[in-house]
């Protein structure tokens, strides 16, 4: 197993799992937490992440396939996506309007489906969106911060996080994000409410206003 990423909560290894190109995402213990609490929490989150992955997959969203959960070591084995991140893709294709529109269409559709399932991704960035090499489809990865919620607020914040990621890493990407929103509005039944809330969220900068 080869370590390919070390995050605040998990290490990601690349490996071949019974012939499949896979990654193993291992949540490691947080020593600041009481060990009993840490164990319960970590176990719960591993399951939560796997569940969100699978629910998305069931609903037709392209996600890494879930292979195996090692609940004793808090590892999720899943498919290793062959392709590139949307981040790289956009950096290479900034001039190609058709390509950018195509990607916006895919992102908007995927997010509408995701939110229809009441799944909040929690960490939508252009690094967590992949383009699958073989099929050109959009793949949603890293459900480590995902949770289930039907609140318009949570969905709006999800979109806002993505907007911030777009604007901070890609030049002139407002148009692209607007296109994503257009598609999202078209595909989502609660799109209008979420969009209205997004405008509020933009004004106050991600956080809920505590004005009473």
């Amino acid at each position: 197993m080869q370590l390919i990423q070390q995050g605040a909560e998990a290490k990601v290894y690349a490996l071949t799992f019974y012939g499949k190109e896979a990654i193993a995402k291992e949540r490691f213990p947080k020593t600041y937490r009481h060990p009993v609490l840490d164990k319960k929490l970590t176990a719960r989150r591993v399951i939560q992440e796997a569940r969100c992955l699978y629910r998305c997959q069931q609903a037709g969203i392209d996600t890494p396939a879930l292979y195996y959960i090692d609940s004793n070591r808090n590892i999720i084995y899943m498919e290793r996506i062959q392709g590139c991140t949307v981040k790289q893709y956009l950096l290479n294709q900034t001039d190609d309007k058709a390509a950018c529109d195509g990607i916006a269409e895919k992102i908007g559709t995927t997010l509408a489906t995701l939110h229809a399932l009441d799944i909040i991704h929690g960490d939508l960035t252009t690094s967590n969106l992949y383009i699958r090499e073989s099929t050109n489809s959009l793949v949603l990865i890293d459900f480590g911060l995902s949770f289930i919620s039907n609140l318009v607020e949570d969905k709006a914040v999800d979109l806002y996080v993505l907007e911030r990621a777009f604007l901070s890493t890609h030049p002139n990407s407002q148009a692209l994000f607007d296109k994503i929103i257009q598609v999202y509005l078209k595909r989502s039944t609660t799109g209008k409410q979420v969009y209205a809330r997004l405008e509020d969220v933009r004004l106050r900068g991600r956080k809920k206003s505590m004005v009473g």
Partner: protein
Amino acid sequence: MSLTQSQPLQLHDQATQVHVALWINVSNASELHQRLLGGDTTVNCALINPEAVVDPFQVMVAVHRAAEALEQQQLRTRNIYSEIVYNLSPNKSIKEAFTRFGLNPTCKTILAVRVGGSQEAFDNEVGATIVGEPAALERLSSVTSLDKVRQYYKLPANTSNILNAAVGAMALKGYT
């Protein structure tokens, strides 16, 4: 040449081999079934009804989980072989797992799985146990009923990758 597929179990040093063989035109399923029910340990392998098995990978994941459970002393069933059958099912019912994925008296095709030992020993012993013809694993697809797979794993009709969906359901077994 043997048609058995052998590959290392991906636990620890990967020294243990897992052997998988497909047998078709089996004529003694009823007898084998009786032996298994009677707790006959000389069968010494998992005998699977491959009707809802899409790919050997699906079996390997079940084997991996069973081996892990054995090591952690977390087996839900009698031994590693019954556990492999049990793990193929996406829910916790042992009875349902064996009805759907275990050998039944009318089976004409059997997927035999052994953990450990040499391929040669496996081939010899399985050859002495099952009356039928060994076949290449590639022929698995001709015996798989995708409708059964969708039904057992509760997959929507438009599922694009049946194998991945089935394996995902297996992975979440016991966690939903």
